[in-house]
């Protein structure tokens, strides 16, 4: 009849009290269980959505900070570009899996036509349109392909040598190639034309022009838009036009063409040339893109990078958007957090009080154990077993009911909150196609091992804490006073 057996016998011999304790724990356990289930679901949805958003980060102007500036302050800003040195320094951080930085420009062509989807109308331009988006790259395997924006379907990606030397090679979309009967190995020509608007004559004229001949080394297809999207093909094409007309080239090509454009333009626009006389002109403006090891690294990465940046720059992560679109889930998360804290405190107080009242009734019994030489530790152990076994049963029962309750509550709350949060947010940064609706769809109260473990952990720990006050009572018991009164 050791203390373990006495504890178990105590439960069955005092059925009434055990049932009361069970009922109290069950009720409170439902609150804890429900709140835990919602917490778990919100954590899961955050992880899930952030995974979908990707582990991308970039450095760009902090538009929110710039918006706060007065006109005078704007005038005083010395604009600085983010140079390759800083990008490479950031790229070496341990959070970064790989990175790229891109210089971009739009060029036109007299020899090839841009891809216009299923639109039959021919859009007429004066001279070539600037339909082709030249995207310079520094990361030879092409970051967009690695990150699933597009995939190479023919040919190859760049070599390190080509990137370094600024070779005249390009990767274009298969749709653009098909439209112009181009294949891997063919050359095509873009044209870099410099326009000048003459205010006196009111006419626009081409003041300089040069051809940019590129060899096609690879063809890609877009993976940006899902085929299962509920839109007709024409609309999908229209949304994707920019990407279909993107031409990947080494950064040096874009830099050369940008430099040519500005130098020629300055020659044509005397007024502008005078206004910038003596100033060093930096033609290089890069948009860096860092692929992090995990979306969870975003915050730490941003914290480490921000001190390295010039004023008015900030780090933007793909996952930043989460806070803007996760309104309903965030409010559920906050509510469940408060409920969890309140339930835990209530449990500690109520169970503590109930156990203490029961122990007062059993003061003589406890005194008897002590008079027989039982250690206070084992007497405490006996009480803990009695409480924890009942708690385990109560918690197990509430595990299921609390989970079901959490599911129902979440469903109704999501419907209400959806109305408030669904639309209209202002967001500077990555624009992906994940919306509040996706967040709500991803939200699911599950019954998985993590939930079970977390709930048992929180539940049993709370009950354990609630027995501290009664246990102090046992430690202070004096068997002589109890038994010889």
């Amino acid at each position: 009849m050791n203390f373990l057996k006495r504890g178990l016998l105590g439960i069955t011999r005092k059925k009434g009290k055990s049932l009361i304790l069970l009922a109290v724990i069950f009720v409170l356990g439902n609150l804890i269980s429900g709140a835990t289930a919602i917490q778990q679901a919100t954590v899961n949805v955050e992880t899930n959505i952030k995974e979908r958003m990707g582990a991308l980060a970039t450095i760009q102007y902090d538009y929110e900070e710039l918006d706060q500036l007065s006109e005078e302050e704007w005038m005083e800003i010395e604009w600085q570009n983010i140079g390759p040195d800083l990008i490479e320094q950031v790229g070496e951080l341990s959070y970064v899996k790989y990175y790229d930085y891109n210089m971009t420009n739009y060029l036109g062509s007299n020899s090839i036509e841009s891809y216009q989807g299923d639109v039959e109308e021919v859009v007429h331009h004066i001279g070539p349109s600037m339909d082709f988006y030249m995207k310079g790259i520094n990361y030879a395997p092409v970051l967009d392909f690695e990150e699933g924006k597009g995939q190479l379907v023919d040919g190859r990606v760049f070599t390190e040598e080509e990137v370094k030397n600024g070779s005249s090679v390009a990767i274009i979309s298969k749709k653009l190639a098909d439209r112009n009967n181009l294949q891997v190995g063919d050359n095509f020509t873009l044209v870099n034309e410099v326009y000048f608007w003459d205010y006196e004559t009111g006419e626009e004229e081409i003041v300089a022009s040069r051809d940019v001949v590129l060899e096609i080394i690879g063809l890609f297809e877009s993976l940006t838009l899902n085929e299962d999207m509920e839109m007709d093909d024409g609309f999908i094409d229209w949304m994707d036009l920019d990407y279909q007309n993107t031409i990947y080239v080494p950064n040096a090509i874009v830099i050369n063409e940008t430099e040519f454009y500005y130098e020629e333009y300055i020659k044509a626009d005397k007024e502008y040339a005078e206004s910038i006389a003596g100033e060093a002109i930096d033609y290089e403006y890069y948009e860096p893109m860092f692929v992090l090891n995990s979306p969870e690294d975003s915050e730490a990465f941003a914290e480490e990078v921000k001190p390295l940046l010039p004023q008015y720059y900030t780090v933007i992560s793909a996952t930043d958007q989460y806070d803007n679109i996760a309104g309903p889930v965030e409010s559920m998360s906050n509510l469940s957090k408060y409920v969890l804290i309140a339930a835990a405190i209530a449990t500690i107080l109520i169970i503590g009080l109930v156990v203490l009242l029961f122990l007062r009734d059993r003061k003589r019994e406890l005194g008897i154990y002590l008079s027989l030489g039982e250690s206070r530790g084992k007497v405490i152990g006996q009480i803990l077993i009695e409480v924890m076994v009942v708690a385990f049963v109560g918690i197990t029962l509430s595990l299921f009911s609390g989970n079901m309750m959490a599911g129902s509550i979440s469903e109704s709350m999501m419907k209400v909150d959806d109305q408030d949060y669904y639309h209209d947010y202002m967001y500077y940064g990555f624009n992906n196609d994940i919306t509040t609706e996706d967040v709500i769809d991803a939200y699911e109260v599950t019954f998985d091992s993590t939930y079970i473990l977390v709930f048992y952990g929180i539940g049993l720990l709370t009950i354990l804490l609630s027995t501290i006050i009664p246990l102090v009572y046992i430690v202070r018991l004096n068997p002589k006073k109890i038994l010889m009164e």
Partner: protein
Amino acid sequence: MILEARDLNYYYQDGDMRRYILKDTSVSFEKGKFYTILGQSGSGKTTLLSLLSALDSPHSGTILFNDQDIKQIGYENYRRNHVGIIFQSYNLIPTFTAVENVLIPMSITENEVPEDQKTVAYNLLDYIGIVKSKADRTVNKLSGGEQQRVAIARALATNVELIVADEPTGNLDEEMEQEIIDIFKRLAHEHNKCVIVVTHSNEIALQSDQSFLLRKGVLTANE
């Protein structure tokens, strides 16, 4: 000598005054004898017993068990392994059966107890007059006399040499009282135990091998 108390002092502090319950009390006990300590209500006999059973500690003085200070043995250890205590109000666990009550100290003591504890417990109960059918009842379904027998069996369960009892027959009728006293005499004389009983009954005192009188905190031999 199994138990010896030397110069025990025990008092209550009442402002600046000390109200002595025991003053320089010394007494010794031997194995194989049945002792009684007589005294009026409030004379301090229960306090003396609580000191001898290590339920409380004296303000000064020492208690030696087999020539070793019980403080050194450790009060909890002493109660667990060396003394069996019987109370006036039995102090059994009401939700447990008689045999379960006897089994409790067997799992607590560090003394050697036979492996088949349940059989030993039934035999002990049988020895002091509780048959098996009653041994399996919860103790609150037994009479006062039967409950006191269970309490005695519990005190004997750990095979201790010293039994102390506080007014063990206080709640019993005369016939039952005599049966309990006979058990104590048997334990002392046939099983070589030292039995110390605190009582206010002269009839019980007359049946003991030696009787002490406690009056105003002073213990004297009762001739």
